[in-house]
């Protein structure tokens, strides 16, 4: 009898445990330590603040290896090529997507989403911002990097950015200026401001040789109606729209603060924070710094508006995504972390900690908006985020560098714009031929 009782109690306990296990999808992974690789970046600094919450809820420990983002890419390149990797989850820059997916180094997420034990039915993937999902997470669709029927998901956007126009409310009010809505208005204002406020530049922009100049040019190319390639991969940066974008960049730099020709991102932001320019057209990630009195002299003086419109609206899509390396050791637990971070709750937590949310609902959330009033405008800007504002193909690094150094020559040595871009187009054509993009033509 005693034996029977014992068995019953044991059976009941087991059943109870099994029931608990069903109620807690994390139980199986309790005590697991995940090693993740994140960049040193304002968004991921905010992520660090919410990770303890994840551990408390799930019992899964997370160890973070945080590196400057270019260093991070180098490290990942080496790590992902190993048979057994050190990282369970990585954050990657948009342009790494092509390299990693092409080398078969990122897990296709389908099998995790299909797994009922792992996939949270309340995740609401439709709430994730479309442009970013396709830009950062999707591969294999149209052109290989865009949305399309042949594509699938390899990562989820996390720490995504778009471009936005910051302007000095006080200066605009003082001179009765209207916030520019179109490119023509912005360019006119860019050169008018140095006349109205001697010593102040119009727009702070990156311009230094290499990826800085190229980034600044691409910011204008999409809204002005241009593209780097047409649908058959023919370079089109030397089209009329491409030339207009370079002219816009040159005008902005010429009417910018002193030394603007050599500004990297840090200097351009620094100029705006110091009050040396009346406008700033670049990524949304700067919002936190602009309101930080220890770094900024323009706290409370900055208003935000959409990236001005040219032939169309087209703000940039950039930032980071998170994915599971193919050589990770704890893939299931890594997926759980990924899902938790990008869930509605995780996204709101990170937004409140100062990060960049990736969901529409977070941008519209009253708590988030009460703490960060700019969030509503940023959410609006995201609707116009253009996933094709630059190509994400393996040879882009080389083309980008050529474009950036050539544009730097345009800005500093007064090279003829059409001639310079014709040169880039010709060299790009050679790079693309070599990489096999015209095999089927």
């Amino acid at each position, binding site marked *: 009898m005693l034996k029977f009782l014992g068995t019953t109690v044991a059976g009941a306990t087991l059943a109870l445990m099994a029931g608990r296990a069903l109620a807690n999808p994390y139980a199986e992974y309790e005590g697991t330590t995940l090693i993740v690789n994140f960049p040193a970046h304002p968004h991921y600094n905010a992520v660090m603040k919410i990770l303890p919450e994840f551990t408390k809820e799930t019992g899964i420990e997370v160890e973070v290896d945080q590196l400057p983002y270019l260093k991070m890419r180098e490290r990942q390149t*080496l790590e992902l090529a190993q048979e057994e990797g050190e990282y369970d989850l990585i954050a990657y820059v948009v342009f790494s997507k092509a*390299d990693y997916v092409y080398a078969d180094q990122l897990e296709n997420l389908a099998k995790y989403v299909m797994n009922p034990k792992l996939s949270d039915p309340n995740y609401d993937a439709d709430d994730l911002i479309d442009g970013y999902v396709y830009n950062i997470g999707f591969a294999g669709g149209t052109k290989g990097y865009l949305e399309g029927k042949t594509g699938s998901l390899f990562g989820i956007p996390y720490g995504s950015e778009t471009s936005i126009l910051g302007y000095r409310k006080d200066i605009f009010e003082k001179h009765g200026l209207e916030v520019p809505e179109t490119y023509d208005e912005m360019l006119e204002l860019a050169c008018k401001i140095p006349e109205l406020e001697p010593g102040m530049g119009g727009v702070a922009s990156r311009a230094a*040789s*290499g990826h800085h100049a190229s980034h600044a040019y691409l910011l204008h190319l999409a809204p002005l109606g241009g593209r780097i390639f047409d649908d058959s991969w023919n370079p089109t940066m030397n089209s009329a729209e491409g030339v207009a974008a370079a002219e816009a960049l040159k005008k902005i730099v010429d009417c910018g603060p002193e030394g603007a020709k050599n500004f990297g991102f840090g200097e351009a932001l620094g100029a705006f924070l110091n009050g040396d320019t009346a406008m700033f057209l670049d990524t949304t990630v700067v919002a936190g710094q602009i309101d930080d009195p220890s770094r900024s002299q323009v706290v409370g003086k900055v208003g935000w508006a959409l990236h001005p419109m040219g032939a169309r609206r087209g703000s940039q899509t950039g930032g980071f995504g998170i994915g599971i390396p193919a050589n990770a050791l704890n893939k299931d637990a890594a997926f759980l972390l990924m899902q938790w971070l990008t869930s509605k709750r995780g996204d709101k937590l990170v937004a409140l900690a100062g990060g960049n949310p990736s969901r529409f609902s977070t941008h519209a959330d009253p708590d988030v908006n009460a703490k960060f009033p700019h969030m509503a405008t940023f959410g609006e800007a995201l609707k116009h985020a253009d996933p094709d504002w630059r190509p994400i193909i*393996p040879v882009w*690094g080389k083309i980008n560098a050529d474009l950036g150094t050539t544009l*730097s020559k345009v800005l*500093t*040595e007064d090279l003829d714009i059409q001639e310079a871009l014709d040169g880039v187009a010709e060299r790009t054509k050679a790079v693309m031929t070599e990489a096999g993009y015209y095999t089927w033509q």
Partner: protein
Amino acid sequence: MKTANRLTPYMFMAPAALIMAIALLYPLGYMVWGSFRDWNPSQTIGEAEFVGLKNYITLWGDPNFRESLGVTLRFAFFVVTFEMVIGVGLALLLDRNIRGMSVLRTLFILPMMIAPVVVGLMWRYMYHPTVGTFNRTLDGLGLGKIDWLGQHALTSVIIADIWQWTPFIFILALAALQSLPRSALEAARIDGATAWQQVWHIKLPLMMPVLIVTGLLRLIDAFKVLEVILVMTEGGPGLSTEILALRISRTATEFRELGVAAAMSNYLLILLLGLTLAMFAFTRWQEARARRVRAAAEEDL
């Protein structure tokens, strides 16, 4: 037994030779092997496709590589020339017993001890167009501002390098000066040689072997400088300060073409090897000439 005896010295040398081979030749061989492949960092070297001399040929036709090579040659020529002249000049001036000399010497070699990244940052801020020391001083004196890192980027980078590395030449030149045979100088003084004559005809010729090696070391270093320029200009504007070391680093990380980067490194290696050999040949020739002169002088006696 005899064979064993003959082999003994080689046996003693074997461990050292083995370590040399592994530590020196293996990485070098790896680089040479890699330069014949179309190799991106996501692949292991074995997976990369063998393309023969293609990387070398492509580079030769690449205007950016040629421009970068030109920048490197100009940079190396100017920095080494100026550093040699200033360094040796300073050594000649300071080769005397002045009070506080050792403090002065320590001060002189300070720049060399600063980490290159710090040097780059320091100069970058001194060259800053509005808040930099130089432009503020020029502005204060009523002179126009100079676009240091824009229009005069290469010159600005050269000035920073001269500031950092002249002490290296100075310290070696001073050591050479102080080890010169005093008898020759005394004899010259007794014969009534002026200070200039002593410098031209005695000090400099006697220092020459040291100066050649010093110059060569600086030249090799100047071809490989990276951090200071990376921090100051990132190679810009355009490609005006993109020296080869920087281009190699960008090719490997930004363009992800390890094979091309390896080929570029090999070109640099061949160039430096050529310079080193030329320098050695020159020293040999000079020594041989000195020997001939001495022999002729002895015959005359």
